């Protein structure tokens, strides 16, 4: 098996004096969807932040064989890591089209082909490109965030709680699109999700975080069959 696209080895992170990650290790294979599960405060969001460099971290993070140790968030974006943060990171004061152009900020030349491609997944965005992003509904904003990350043509997409505050029908739609992007374009995704059922269905593999440690990992099928995962996260 070739080296994974993203590898975390013994990564620690803290906010001021508060240690959040106590040496976690995980790997994301190119072309796969990997999910991170765990209770609130386990360090799921911080894991994504450590990867994109929005929190101080120690330990080894390698992306495509390259160390991310000294790479900040804008550098991570330039390397092809698109991080959709919790709360979506939408520029609500800007228009839909400006949000999409920002997604492709690190790309040179015309982004028209990227926009066409994104509009083929999200046809309604095309009609609303002049609308202020803040006037979109929560679900629409989440789709916009995904579209914005996607115009970058990222090598790795980091998604933080994409289902938060969305109606079930939209959550299903969202995961369908993520799955489609993965199957048709080979997009690699690392997704943090409360809805373990949906996440494990979409993902190839998963990690369970508790109090800053990886307590369990494996293929989605294995995790779904695991008794503790079933009790704690799947609810049956």
């Amino acid at each position, binding site marked *: 098996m070739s080296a994974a696209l993203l590898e975390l080895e013994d990564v620690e992170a803290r906010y001021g004096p508060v240690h959040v990650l106590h040496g976690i290790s995980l790997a994301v294979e190119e072309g796969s969807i990997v999910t991170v599960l765990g209770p609130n405060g386990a360090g799921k969001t911080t894991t994504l932040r450590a990867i994109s460099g*929005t929190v101080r971290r120690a330990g080894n993070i390698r992306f495509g064989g390259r160390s991310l140790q000294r790479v900040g968030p804008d550098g991570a974006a330039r390397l092809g890591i*698109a991080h959709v943060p919790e709360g979506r*990171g939408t520029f609500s004061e*800007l228009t839909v089209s*400006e949000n999409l152009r920002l997604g492709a*900020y*690190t790309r040179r030349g015309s982004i028209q082909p990227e926009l066409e491609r994104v509009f083929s997944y999200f046809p309604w965005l095309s009609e609303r490109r002049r*609308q202020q992003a803040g006037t979109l509904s929560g679900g*629409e904003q989440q789709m916009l965030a995904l579209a914005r990350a996607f115009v970058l043509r990222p090598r790795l997409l980091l998604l933080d709680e994409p289902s938060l505050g969305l109606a079930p029908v939209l959550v299903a739609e969202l995961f369908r699109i993520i799955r489609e992007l993965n199957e048709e374009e080979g997009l690699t995704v690392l997704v943090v999700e409360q809805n373990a059922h949906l996440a494990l269905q979409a993902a190839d593999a998963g990690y369970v975080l508790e109090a800053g440690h990886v307590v369990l990992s494996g293929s989605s099928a294995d995790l779904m069959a695991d008794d503790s995962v079933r009790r704690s996260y799947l609810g049956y």
Partner: protein
Amino acid sequence: MVTAATSRLEGLRGRAIDPGATTVVLLLLGVAVFLLVGCLQSKNFAQYTIQGIALGSVYGSLALALVLVYRATHVINFAQGELAMFTTYIAYELMLHGFSYWAAFAATLAIAFVLGTVLQVTIIRPVQHRSVIATVIVTVGLFVLIDGVVNWIWGGDLKSMKSPFGNGFFVVGGVAIQHLYVGMVIVVFASAVLVWALFRFTKLGLGMRAAALRPAAASLVGVRVDSMLAIGWGLAAVLGGVAGLMAEPSQFLLTPTFMQPILVYAFAAAVLGGLESPAGALIGGLLIGVMLTLLVGYEPHIGPITITSELQLPFSFVVLLLILLVKPSGLFGRREVRRV
């Protein structure tokens, strides 16, 4: 499907309309009608109004510089006026060395840009993340520093530059309009339009707006936030430079303190405009300029009291105070539309 699910929100599409916007538009229309009627009634009134518009555009230009910095870093740059004064001295020096007015003008604005950028990187950036108050204190320090340096290099005596627009005037309906006033308005508005176009139509401008609105989210899409803020300071210094260069030939002779009253008027203009609104800063500048000029020029006698130019500064403070008390968000204060 998304399209089906979201079509229920069809009724909520489009930009939300700010209920206060209509009031503001009516108010401004009222002012415009008042000024127009005044100008038609009295040549004297028209004369002062025109002068007020020209001076107001200068205040607006400096106010715009304050707004750019405020939007980017949420601090008021108290040294903005002194920075403009410094760059005006540079233009003066260049002309002494044989530069033509417009060559000196262009070179000065380029120097202003570099100066603004370098100042942000060297003295603002290190304190910016600590606290707003620390940053403000640094700008006050910068004010004193520039003042000292200029006095040391050029001394405190009056200097003057030749007017870039000559001493001619147009006569329109019996009212003399100096070329200078027309020139000032054109130069200020042309620079404002250029800056607006930069923000509105270029990728750099988009990155700057993103960095100012949401620094964290902007860096996640690859925007170099620190560079954007530095460029923002550079652009503010350019607009301040325009204000200094246009103020000098009109009314204010070149001294180390000549931008200080203008800074106060620019504060009033920026606050009147809403502090976050570039268009508001320009309109605020025009309003303040016309108000102050008419106040001391047109009908300076209220009963036994004669209003002289000494009262312009206190008056602009009263305006500032009234806005802060009555409508702190100003005429065009940003009301964010956000639905989660």
